């Protein structure tokens, strides 16, 4: 089943037209999206680095992860909310962009790794899962979300 009719439908919605035809909403939403990227990246990195045995090593992993979790969740929500109008207003461009689908696949994998696998790994004290798994998960998390950022930037530059 092709998703093309759904993307076409999104782009014809009055909400999408409002964003396309108005001057300020798109840049404002893009700025909010980018600031959310920074908040998300910070909350992600301090825990990923800690899993790699770097960064804030004077704190336990569970304490650090639980402190970063609200920032991670709410910035992820802000990213989705600010991403939707941008996607809707240029839906067909996104549909035909390989980088958009790359980004969405990486977001899907990244969300599973971060909010399911890493959450479990980071909930236990250092050593519980051995020396290797936390590092593998930390590296995977950094690689996936870096791929998301690269894909996102390339939608605008090469699509």
């Amino acid at each position: 089943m092709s998703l093309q009719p759904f993307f076409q439908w999104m782009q014809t919605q009055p909400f999408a037209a409002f964003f396309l035809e108005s001057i300020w909403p798109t840049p404002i939403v893009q700025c909010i999206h980018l600031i959310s990227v920074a908040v998300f990246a910070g909350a992600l990195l301090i825990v990923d680095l800690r899993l790699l045995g770097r960064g804030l090593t004077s704190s336990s992993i569970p304490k650090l992860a639980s402190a970063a979790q609200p920032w991670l969740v709410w910035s992820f929500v802000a990213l989705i909310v600010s991403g939707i109008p941008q996607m809707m207003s240029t839906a067909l461009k996104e549909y035909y962009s390989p980088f958009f689908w790359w980004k969405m696949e990486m977001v899907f994998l990244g969300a599973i790794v971060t909010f399911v696998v890493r959450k479990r790994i980071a909930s236990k004290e250092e050593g519980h899962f051995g020396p290797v798994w936390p590092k593998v998960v930390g590296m995977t998390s950094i690689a996936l979300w870096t791929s998301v950022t690269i894909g996102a930037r390339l939608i605008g530059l090469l699509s």
Partner: protein
Amino acid sequence: MLRSLFEFVDALPSSVAWRESLNAYVYLLTAHVVSMGVVAGIISYWDMRLAGMALKWIPVSKVQSGLFPWLYGGTAVNAGTGLLMVYSQPMRYYPNFWFWLKMGMLLVLVANAAYFHLSIEKTVEKWDNDPVAPLKARVAGYVSLAFWAGVIATGRMTAYSGLVPQWWIDLGLG
């Protein structure tokens, strides 16, 4: 004088080479955005520790020693790619309102960091373990958070060189 400098760089063969490269801008901007996430993300936790918003159980000096090596690495990539973008297209950035606003905000951030380093940080042993830092340190943290958000926003707005105040257009820099 500033315009002459930008025009001089614009005419340099290496600037022209970067400008005419098919992929250089794509690589530079992508690396700039990824490293922005590292720099702004990490510095936000340092600022939030100073402001008393996060990591309150970790001594300030430990937050600094744990995060700053990554901050320096990210800043090297971020500043390097940013400089190369301006170097490759100086006359695109020279008349850009948002570019200069971003540079102004970066100057405030440098001054804020220098003031913290030369003044507030000198007494850090006295409040290293305090969950909430002294007022001056908290203010430095809040100022940095606000201006970093401004740098990110004005950086994004650089693409909207036409969305600027009329008085800026009247300057006739373009």
